[in-house]
């Protein structure tokens, strides 16, 4: 077995997963990752979508030619790898959709966001695919901030207080983003053999700390704007916009977690500041964003 820490949970895995932070094998295991045969169909399924099947407490993801993943009660992930599959591909789905489902089942509120920490608080950068979440966090890491998560940030409610832990020790970036950061693809590995997306290490491990969530910034690429703008979201809009940032929200009703999800979003909405950033697409925009964020988070 290999022992890791993931979003503050103790993980024992039959697979070697060097992207995760090292864990303590003496601590009680909260999540097991096992190599096991997974049937094609989940029994008693409540919701079936493209590639996934869900019922309360259970989640299955089938990726042809890669693997079948089965998540049980948020405490076990079974992986049935397809013949000749590249393990890199398996990890791409494991660290994204599979963990996303697991986070819902472990009573967190997974946000589609990358995150950094500053002075003990966490700050999340949410947005759709391609909005530049990872690039911004990598740029903030370069400025000396602690990068916490990339793409998936599961918020835990400790006594109803929203906190965030560090998760996976890598960010995923495209070559143009690396170029903007003054980095080359040399010595970085591609996350999938057929994809020009590279893994960049999260430099500092602070896996034992919990970071109360202070602010969430929604990144909105806007090709029609030439100016970077930021607006605080308040009132009724705030909860609606926060709910939309949920990671893999299409699984929620299959898990019968709608009410719980609403409750967590409302709790979060009462505790954090929410901002919307309209971003023009250019290199100065990234530098400007970094400066703007540093101002807002008090660096």
């Amino acid at each position, binding site marked *: 077995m290999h022992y890791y820490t993931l979003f503050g949970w103790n993980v024992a895995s039959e697979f070697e997963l060097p992207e995760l932070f090292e864990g303590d094998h003496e601590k009680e295991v909260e999540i097991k990752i096992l190599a096991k045969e997974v049937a094609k169909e989940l029994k008693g399924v409540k919701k079936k*979508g*493209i*590639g*996934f099947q869900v019922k309360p407490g259970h989640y299955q*993801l089938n*990726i*042809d030619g890669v693997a079948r993943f089965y998540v049980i009660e948020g405490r076990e992930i079974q992986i049935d790898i397809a013949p000749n599959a590249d393990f890199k591909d398996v990890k*791409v789905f494991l660290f*994204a*959709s599979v963990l*996303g*489902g697991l986070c819902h089942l472990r009573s967190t509120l997974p946000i589609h966001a990358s995150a950094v920490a500053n002075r003990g608080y966490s700050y999340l950068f949410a947005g*759709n*695919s*391609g909005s530049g979440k990872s690039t911004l966090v990598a740029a903030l890491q370069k400025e000396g901030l602690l990068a916490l998560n990339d*793409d998936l940030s599961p918020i835990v409610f400790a006594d109803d207080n929203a906190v965030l832990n560090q998760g996976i020790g890598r960010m*995923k970036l*495209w070559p143009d983003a690396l170029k903007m950061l003054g980095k080359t693809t040399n010595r970085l590995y591609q*996350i*999938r053999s*057929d*994809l*020009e*997306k590279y893994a960049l290490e999260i430099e500092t491990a602070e896996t034992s700390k919990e970071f109360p969530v202070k602010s969430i910034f929604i990144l909105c*690429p806007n*090709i*029609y704007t030439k100016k970077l703008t930021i607006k605080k979201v308040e009132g009724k809009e705030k909860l609606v916009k926060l709910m939309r940032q949920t990671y*893999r929200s*299409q*699984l929620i009703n299959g898990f019968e977690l709608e009410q719980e999800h609403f409750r967590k979003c409302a709790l979060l909405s009462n505790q954090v500041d929410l901002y919307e950033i309209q971003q023009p697409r250019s290199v100065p925009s990234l530098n400007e964003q970094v400066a703007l964020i540093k101002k807002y988070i008090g660096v």
Partner: protein
Amino acid sequence: MFWLASYPKSGNTWIRVFLTNLIIGGKGTFNINQLMKTYFANDNQLIEHFTPFEPSELTFQELENVRKRLFHQLPKLVLKESCVKIHHANQLFQLNESLLSDLSQKVIYVVRNPLDVVISLAYHQQWSIDQSIEFLNNNNAIMGNPTKLNQRMSADFLSSWSRHYRSWKVGYPECLVIRYEDMLENEWITFSSISKYLGFSFTKGEINEAIIKSKIGLLQKQEAKTRFKEGSIVNQNFFRKGISGEWKSILIPEQIERIVSRHGLVMEELNYL
């Protein structure tokens, strides 16, 4: 929900303008940036919203398979009164398999003379005419970069102009084929056939009114005042000329020959020759 399929720059936006005017009727003022609810088949947000996948982490082949499954279910997932605009060929990349095979769906396929398409495409993409012809003739043509899927809109497999047409005409025999040129020359018959195919029961007067409100001149006037959000970010005008036969004064004989020798059979079938 219906599908509006076409090779790029073939006039499908115009059909959406007409339908918007038809639906609004005398009730409201038409605005080019408030067309009828339209989903774009290559919008990665469709995948993000309706599947558990991160589109930018799928290979192009995986993306193609996810789209095929998603498109099959789309009528159940999107608004009932909407259209889905698609430029993808009705064929999966490098596979002899249809993208849309559920024949119960409504599909309007808009086709335009390739001699005019090359000019419009060159303008829109900032290509030379020769680059545009090369693209139209390429059986493996993909619009966008299939190994870099971090854009909001992902790459579309188009194949060549002829194969694109056949993939829909033959691969989806229930589709209604509309020639762009007929929208100009036989507007009433053409737009009525669209209304009828979609099961609408608008009167002759209502259809005529929508046609008048959808004239290219009016669209150009609006675009001169306000940017058309679906237009290219490079060019100023999306609604360019709205004419057919521009090729006669722009293409040189050698360029015409390259297109006709490659697409002559389909062009004959569509009375372009």
